[in-house]
C-alpha cells in the first residue's frame, strides 16, 4: 500500500469544516469540564468532612455531565451536517511571539461521540463503584480521582489544539497513576503505577516532539489551521510527525513496543480497569491518530507503520490473553488486542478511521461490561482473581453471568452483538487495503474466540474450584444495574450505531471517507470470519470442557511465554531499565570521583604545596640571608634579561 499515499491524498482529504461559534446550549461547553473538576476539587481538598456524601457528589457531577452531553448531542443532530463543529475559545493560554496556544475547546462529531462514551460509561462505572468500593476507607479519594480522570479525559477530547490536548493527555496519565496505585500500601501497586507513568512518558516524548515539529512546520498548533495546511507540508515532514504521534499513541494505548504497563495496571481497583484501562483512556491513542487524520493522509509510510504496530499488538494481546489465569490480566490482554484492531483500522487511512472509532465505541461498552462483570465476580469471590479458582459461577451469580455473556458474544463478534458490526467492518476494510492485514484480523478474531471462551468456561461453567471459605454471592443492585445496562449496550450499540445512528455518515465530515467498490462480497467475508471464530470457540471448549487443574499445567513453550506476557518486562529490563541504572550508577561515581575529585584534589594539592613550602622557613637567619642573596641575583638577572631583550 506504500505509494498509494499520494493517490489517497487526492481523493480522501477530509473536508475541513469551519468551527461555528459556541452559542445556545453549546455556550456552556466549559461546564462539561468544570463539573467533574469541581467534584474532584471538593473531594480531594475537602478532606475527611466530605467522606460521607463525597462519593455521591462524585457520581452526581458525572451523571450531570452525561445529561448535558446528551443535550449537546441532541442539539448537534439538529444542526446541518457541515455546521456541527463548535469552537469555544476561553482565553489565550501560552502566547510567545508566533507561538500561540489558546485555551479553546472544540466540539465536533468526533469529540461528541467520545464525550458521550466518557460521560455515560463513566457514570455507570461511578455508580458501580459505589458498591464495589463500599468498604474502602479511602472511598472519597477514589471518587475524587475518578472525577479528576473524567475532567482530564474530556479536556483531551475537547481540546482544539495539540498543546491543550497534551494537558489532558498527561492529566489522564496522572489520574491513571493515582488510580493504579490507589492501594499504595501494596508495593506491587505502587510499582505498577510508576511503571505506567514512566512508560507513558516515553510516549509523551513523541507527542511533545510532534507538537514542536507541527509548530515549526505550520506555525501553529491549532487543529483546524494545522489540518488546513497539512497538504502543503512535505511527505517526509508529515511522516515524521505521524511516527512521533504514533509513538505517543503507543504509550497511551499500550501498543507494541510500549505495551508492558497495561497488564500491571490491573493492580488498580476493577472499576478503574474498566473505565481507564479498557473503555476510555487507553483508546486515546486511537483518538489522536484519527484526529490527526489529515496529517496521516499525507504519509503512506506512517500509516503502514501504524497498521503494522496494530497487527503486532493485536496478536501479542490475544496470545497473552489466552494464557493468563488472572481474569483481569486475561481481559487486559484482550484490551490490547482489541485496541490493536482499532490501530489497524486507523492505519488503513480514511477508509478505516470511522471503523476505528466505531470499534472503539462498541469496545468501550462491551469491555466495560466484561470488566465490571469480572469485578462483580472478584467481589463475590472475596478478591480472588485466579480463574482456576472459579468455575460453576453461573448458578451463584446469575445476573453477572448473563451480562457477562452479552459482553462475551459482543467481543467475539457473534451477530447481532455490537462487536460483530465494528470488528467485521475493520476486517473488511483491511481486505480492501491489504489482504495480509485482513487475514491477520480474521486469525486474531479466532484467537479472541478462543481466549474469551476459555474465560467463560473457567469462570462460569465446569466444576466449582473455590477455596474453602469462599461463598460466592450475587452483587448488590448498585453494581448489577450498571451491568445490566452495559449488557444491553453490548447487545445493541453496534446495530444502533449502524442502522439508526449512521456512525459512518456522522463522522465523515471529520474523518473523510473514500467509497470504493467492495472487491469481496460482504456476506462471504462475514461467513469466513464467523467460522474462524467458531473454530477458536470449539478449540477452547474442547480444551477446557473437562476439569481444569487448580495448578496451571506446565504447558508448551508458547503457553509459558504467554503466561510471562511474552517476557516484555524482561526485555524492557535488559534493553532499557538496567542500562539506564548502570549509566546512572556510573555517572554517580564519575561525579564523586572525577569531577568533585578534581575540585577537592586541587584544594588538597594547594594544601600539600603549602606544607612543603613552609619548610623553607627553616628559622635560621643565615638561610634567610642566603635566599635574599639569591633573590638579589634573580632581580639582577631579570633586569638584565629584560634590558637585553
Amino acid at each position: 500500500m506504500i505509494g498509494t499515499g499520494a493517490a489517497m491524498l487526492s481523493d480522501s482529504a477530509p473536508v475541513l469544516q469551519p468551527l461555528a461559534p459556541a452559542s445556545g446550549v453549546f455556550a456552556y461547553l466549559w461546564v462539561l469540564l468544570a463539573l467533574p473538576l469541581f467534584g474532584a476539587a471538593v473531594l480531594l481538598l475537602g478532606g475527611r468532612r466530605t467522606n460521607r456524601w463525597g462519593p455521591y457528589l462524585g457520581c452526581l457531577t458525572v451523571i450531570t455531565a452525561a445529561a448535558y452531553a446528551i443535550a449537546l448531542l441532541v442539539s448537534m443532530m439538529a444542526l446541518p451536517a457541515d455546521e456541527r463543529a463548535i469552537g469555544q475559545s476561553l482565553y489565550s493560554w501560552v502566547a510567545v511571539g508566533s507561538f500561540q496556544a489558546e485555551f479553546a475547546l472544540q466540539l465536533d462529531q468526533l469529540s461528541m461521540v467520545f464525550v458521550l462514551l466518557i460521560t455515560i460509561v463513566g457514570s455507570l462505572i461511578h455508580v458501580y463503584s459505589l458498591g464495589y468500593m463500599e468498604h474502602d476507607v479511602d472511598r472519597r479519594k477514589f471518587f475524587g480521582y475518578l472525577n479528576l480522570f473524567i475532567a482530564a479525559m474530556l479536556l483531551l477530547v475537547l481540546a482544539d489544539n495539540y498543546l491543550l490536548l497534551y494537558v489532558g493527555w498527561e492529566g489522564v496519565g496522572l489520574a491513571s497513576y493515582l488510580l493504579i496505585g490507589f492501594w499504595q500500601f501494596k508495593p506491587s501497586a505502587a510499582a505498577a503505577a510508576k511503571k505506567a507513568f514512566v512508560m507513558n512518558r516515553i510516549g509523551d516524548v513523541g507527542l511533545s516532539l510532534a507538537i514542536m515539529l507541527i509548530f515549526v512546520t505550520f506555525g501553529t498548533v491549532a487543529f483546524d489551521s494545522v489540518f488546513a495546511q497539512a497538504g502543503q507540508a512535505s511527505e517526509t515532514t508529515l511522516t515524521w510527525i505521524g511516527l512521533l504521534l504514533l509513538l505517543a499513541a503507543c504509550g497511551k494505548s499500550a501498543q507494541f513496543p510500549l505495551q508492558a504497563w497495561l497488564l500491571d495496571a490491573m493492580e488498580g481497583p476493577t472499576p478503574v480497569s474498566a473505565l481507564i484501562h479498557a473503555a476510555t483512556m487507553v483508546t486515546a491513542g486511537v483518538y489522536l491518530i484519527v484526529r490527526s487524520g489529515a496529517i496521516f493522509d499525507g504519509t503512506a509510510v506512517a500509516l503502514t507503520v501504524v497498521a503494522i504496530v496494530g497487527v503486532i499488538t493485536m496478536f501479542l494481546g490475544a496470545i497473552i490473553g489466552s494464557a493468563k489465569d488472572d481474569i483481569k490480566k486475561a481481559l487486559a490482554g484482550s484490551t490490547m488486542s482489541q485496541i490493536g484492531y482499532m490501530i489497524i483500522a486507523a492505519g488503513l487511512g480514511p477508509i478505516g478511521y470511522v471503523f476505528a472509532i466505531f470499534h472503539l465505541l462498541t469496545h468501550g461498552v462491551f469491555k466495560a461490561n466484561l470488566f465490571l462483570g469480572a469485578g462483580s465476580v472478584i467481589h463475590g469471590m472475596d478478591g480472588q482473581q485466579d480463574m482456576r479458582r472459579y468455575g460453576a459461577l453461573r448458578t451463584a451469580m446469575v445476573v453477572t453471568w448473563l451480562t457477562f455473556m452479552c459482553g462475551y458474544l459482543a467481543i467475539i463478534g457473534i451477530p447481532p452483538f455490537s462487536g460483530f458490526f465494528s470488528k467485521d467492518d475493520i476486517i473488511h476494510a483491511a481486505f480492501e487495503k491489504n489482504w495480509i492485514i485482513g487475514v491477520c484480523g480474521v486469525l486474531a478474531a479466532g484467537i479472541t474466540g478462543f481466549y474469551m471462551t476459555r474465560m467463560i468456561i473457567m469462570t462460569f461453567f465446569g466444576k466449582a474450584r473455590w477455596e474453602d471459605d469462599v461463598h460466592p454471592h450475587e452483587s448488590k443492585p448498585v453494581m448489577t444495574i450498571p451491568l445490566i445496562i452495559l449488557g444491553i449496550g453490548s447487545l445493541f450499540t453496534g446495530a444502533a450505531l449502524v442502522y439508526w445512528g449512521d456512525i459512518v455518515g456522522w463522522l465523515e465530515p471529520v474523518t473523510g471517507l473514500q467509497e470504493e467498490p467492495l472487491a469481496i462480497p460482504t456476506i462471504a467475508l462475514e461467513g469466513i470470519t464467523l467460522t474462524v471464530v467458531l473454530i477458536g470457540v470449539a478449540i477452547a471448549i474442547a480444551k477446557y470442557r473437562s476439569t481444569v487443574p487448580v495448578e496451571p499445567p506446565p504447558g508448551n513453550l508458547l503457553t509459558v511465554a504467554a503466561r510471562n506476557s511474552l517476557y516484555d518486562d524482561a526485555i524492557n529490563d535488559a534493553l532499557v531499565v538496567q542500562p539506564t541504572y548502570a549509566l546512572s550508577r556510573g555517572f554517580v561515581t564519575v561525579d564523586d570521583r572525577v569531577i568533585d575529585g578534581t575540585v577537592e584534589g586541587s584544594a588538597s594539592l594547594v594544601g600539600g604545596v603549602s606544607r612543603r613550602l613552609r619548610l623553607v622557613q627553616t628559622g635560621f637567619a643565615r638561610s634567610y640571608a642566603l635566599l635574599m642573596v639569591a633573590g638579589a641575583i634573580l632581580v639582577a638577572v631579570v633586569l638584565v634579561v629584560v634590558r637585553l631583550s
Partner: protein
Amino acid sequence: MNIPWLTALMVLPLVGSIITLALPRSRPQVVKAWALIVALATLGLTIAMALEFQADATAPFQFTESYPWIPAFGISYSVGVDGIGLVLVALATVLVPVVILAGWNDVDDQATKGYFALLLVLEALMVGVFSATDVFLFYVFFEVMLVPVYFLIGRYGGAGRTRAAVKFLLYSLVGGLLMLAALIGLYVVSAQQLGQGTFDFLALVGLDIDPNMQKVLFLGFFIAFAIKAPLWPFHTWLPDAAKESTPATAILLIGVLDKVGTFGMIRYLLPIFPAASDFYAPLVIALAVIGILYGALVALGQTDMKRLFAYSSMSHFGFIALGIFVFTLQGGSGSTVYMLAHGLSTAAVFITAGYLMQRNGGSSLISDYGGVNKVAPVLAGFFLFAAMSSLALPGLASFVGEFLVLVGTFIRYWWVAAIATIGIVITAAYALRLYQKVATGPTAPSLEGLPDLTAREKLPLAVVVVLTLAIGFFPGPVLEVVNPAVERTLEVVGVPAPDIPQAAPSGGEAP
C-alpha cells in the same frame, strides 16, 4: 515614577533585620512574628510595584533610580527592572515569607534571631542583585550575597555544614574573582572607547567591543554564572550545600540565588557580548544538554533526598541555560518562566522534605522512609505535587517554561531539542521513584504515628501550589511582562531567528 520602589524593597527588609537583632533573644516567637511581618510587608510593596509596571513601556527599565556612588570610576547606584528582573524580584519576595513560615522551627530558640535576621538581609540583597542596572553594583550584590548564605549554611546547617559552607564560598569566589577581572577589563575597554570609563549597563551595551576581547571577557562572566546556576561541570558544590543547609536556606539558595547565574546570562552576557555569546553558544548548549541528562541520571542514583533535589535542579538549570542560548523568543521567555517555576517547585520539594525530616530525626536518607502516605496523607499529597511540578506536568508552571524552552530550541536545533526531551522521561523516573520509596509501600517503623501537617505547615505549601497552578494555566500576565524584555535582548544579540511559517487564518474564526 518618583516613588523609589526598589530602594524601598531593599531598605525595608534591611531595617527589619536590624530591628530583629534588637529584639530579645528570650522571645523567639516575637522574633519570628516580626520577621514574618517584615517579609509580608515587603511582599505587599512588591505587589504594589508590580501593579505599577507597564508591560508595553518603551523604556528598557522601569522604577529606575540613579545616584552617583564612586564617580571616579563611573560607578553609580542605579536600579531598575525590566520584565525579567521584575519576575525574579517577585519570586524572591514571595519565597521569603513562605520559607519563614515553613522554617518556623528550623533552628533552636538560641539561634532564632541571627537566622531570621540573615534571611531578611538576604532578601534585601536578592532584590538588589536582580534590580541593579550598574554592573559594578550588580557585582557588589553578587559577592556580598555570599556572606549571609555562607553564615546560613555554615552556622545553622547539618553535620557537614562547615565543609559545605566553605566549599560553597570558595567555589563562588572563584567565579566572582574571575568575573571581577572581566568586569575591570570591561571598564578599561569602556574607558578606551568613551574616554571616561563607566559601569552603566545600557552604556556598556552600547559599546562596540572587539570580538576577540569579547571572547575573553565573556569567559570571566560566564564561569561565574555557570558556577552560580550550576551548569555541568561546575556543579559539585550544590549537592553538598543543598544537603547540609536548612530547607529555608536551600530554597533561597537554589530557588532564587542560583537564578542570578541564569539571570546574569540573559541580562549581561547576551547584550554586552553579543558576538561572543554567538561564538560560545554551541559550547554552552552542549554543557546545558549534558547537564540536563547527566543531572537527571545522577539524581536517579541518589540515596539522599536533598542531594537528589540538587541534581534535579542542576538538570533544570540545564533547560534554563539552553533556552537562553538558542536566541529565540520562545527559548528566552521559556527560560524566564522556568526560573520562576523552578523557584516554586524547589520551594515545594524542600519544604515537604523539611517537614519529613523534622518528623524523622532529621534524616534525609531515602531508605529511612516508606509508606508516609498511609500515616500522613496530606504531607504525602504535597510531596507528590512537588514531584509532579519538578517533572513538569502539563498544567503546572514548570511545564510552560520547559515546553517553551524546548520549542525555542527545536526552532533552531531540532536535534538538540530531541535529545533534551529524553530528559523528561528520566525526570519522571527519579521523581516517581522517590515518591514510591518515600510515600508508598508498608510504613517504615520509625514513621508509625507520624503526625500530619498542621495549619501553619500547610499554609506556605498551599501558597506555592496555588501559584504553580495559576502560572501553569494562566501564564499570560507573566509572559506579557517577560516577552518585551527578551525581545529587546535578542534584538541586541542580533542572531536572526529561523523563520516559522505564519499561522494560516484558522478556519474557525466566527463570521
